[in-house]
């Protein structure tokens, strides 16, 4: 820290002495992929994913809540398929899936893009923000930058996304997604080496469609392409909401099973899940309202 502070101090001293002249800079030329605000398409509104919580809806497995035998069909290599099949048998079919969303983890890729909650697409010339109500945000850089070198990337829930516009189609490539995170409610997961390519466009006034291709040389035998759609809500109550899992969490996970805190069992007003409550800060003793 010392060097920048010293440098800043020296520049400040030089300016004070009338010795420092800032180098003249011409405005950088717009990058070829940047568009101005007026030319961006209208994706305003709140959008909800259509279809169930199995990522690939084309094989008939719509929703694992309604059908615990539902499964996904990633083009897994044999060892990945074996691990997934075992997970389906021992966890999903037994109703023991500890969904990371349940305990407050972010949606991340790919869960953000198959949402049962709202999405907003904030289009700016230099970035697109995809905001999810679980909550989570994807930052998609459309300013013409290349991917950073590998030593400047690390696996995250959302990955690192570069985008560009082809007419009114947003073309996104995402790398550096944290492996092992469930991509849907069947527990299917990717390796750390996956690259996701999306082509998102508005196909009518109330529908966005995304063609999603996942390449995963570690887990897959071939690329996997899935189409998902998002429907614009009627905006009677036009607002987004951060649906925090930690606010009034009455469904703690205990030994991998979802529990329910009943009226006579615990202090249900604690903002902390029961599992960590004994480590949590004591609640401020609030005066009780007069009855």
């Amino acid at each position, binding site marked *: 820290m010392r060097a920048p502070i010293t440098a800043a101090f020296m520049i400040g001293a030089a300016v004070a002495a009338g010795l420092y002249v800032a180098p003249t800079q011409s405005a950088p030329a717009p990058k070829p992929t940047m568009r101005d605000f007026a030319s961006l398409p209208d994706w305003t509104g709140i959008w909800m994913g259509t279809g169930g919580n199995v990522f690939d809806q084309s094989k008939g497995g719509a929703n694992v809540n309604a059908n615990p035998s539902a499964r996904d069909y990633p083009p897994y290599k044999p060892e990945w398929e074996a691990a997934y099949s075992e997970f389906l048998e021992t966890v999903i079919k037994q109703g023991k899936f500890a969904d990371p969303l349940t305990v407050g983890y972010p949606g991340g890729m790919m869960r953000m893009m198959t949402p049962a909650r709202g999405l907003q697409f904030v289009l700016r010339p230099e970035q697109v923000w995809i905001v999810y109500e679980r909550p989570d945000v994807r930052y998609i850089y459309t300013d013409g930058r290349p991917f950073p070198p590998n030593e400047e990337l690390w696996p995250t829930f959302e990955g690192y996304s570069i985008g560009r516009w082809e007419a009114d189609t947003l073309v996104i490539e995402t790398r550096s997604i944290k492996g092992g995170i469930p991509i849907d409610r069947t527990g299917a997961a990717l390796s750390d080496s996956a690259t996701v390519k999306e082509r998102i466009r508005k196909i009518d006034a109330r529908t966005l469609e995304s063609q999603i291709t996942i390449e995963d040389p570690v887990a897959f035998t071939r690329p996997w392409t899935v189409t998902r759609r998002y429907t614009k809500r009627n905006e009677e109550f036009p607002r987004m909401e951060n649906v925090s899992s930690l606010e009034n969490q009455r469904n703690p996970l205990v030994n991998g099973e*979802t529990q329910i805190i009943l009226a006579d069992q615990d202090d249900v007003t604690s903002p902390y899940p029961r599992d960590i409550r004994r480590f949590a800060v004591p609640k401020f003793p609030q005066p009780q309202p007069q009855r």
Partner: protein
Amino acid sequence: MLKHLLCAAVLGVSVMPASAHHSGAMFDGAKEIVLVGTIKEFQYTNPHSWIQILVPRDGGGEVEWSIETGAPIVLLRAGIKSNALRPGEKVTLRAHPLKDGGAGGNLIDIKKADGTVLSTRGQ
């Protein structure tokens, strides 16, 4: 626990809401219970809202049930606002019960004294 219910019905086929964010394994999606009671508290909270309802017990006293339903934004989009249920209000509520017999369940719908039915189904 059945003695705590004024009415119980078993349906052949029923499912949990598609938007439930946690496992629904603790609820019996094939069963329905009907609770007739008095609202104690409406917890309009994330990640789920909860209806605390007092149901008379056979032989005197009452049991407080905890009925889970959607997040506030889900309820709002279904037109159910934070003042939709008030303490002291008499309601008839349908839910999928807990498998273990505890005094809890997952909301199907709730009928108010004026006949209004509140439900998030279809959201």
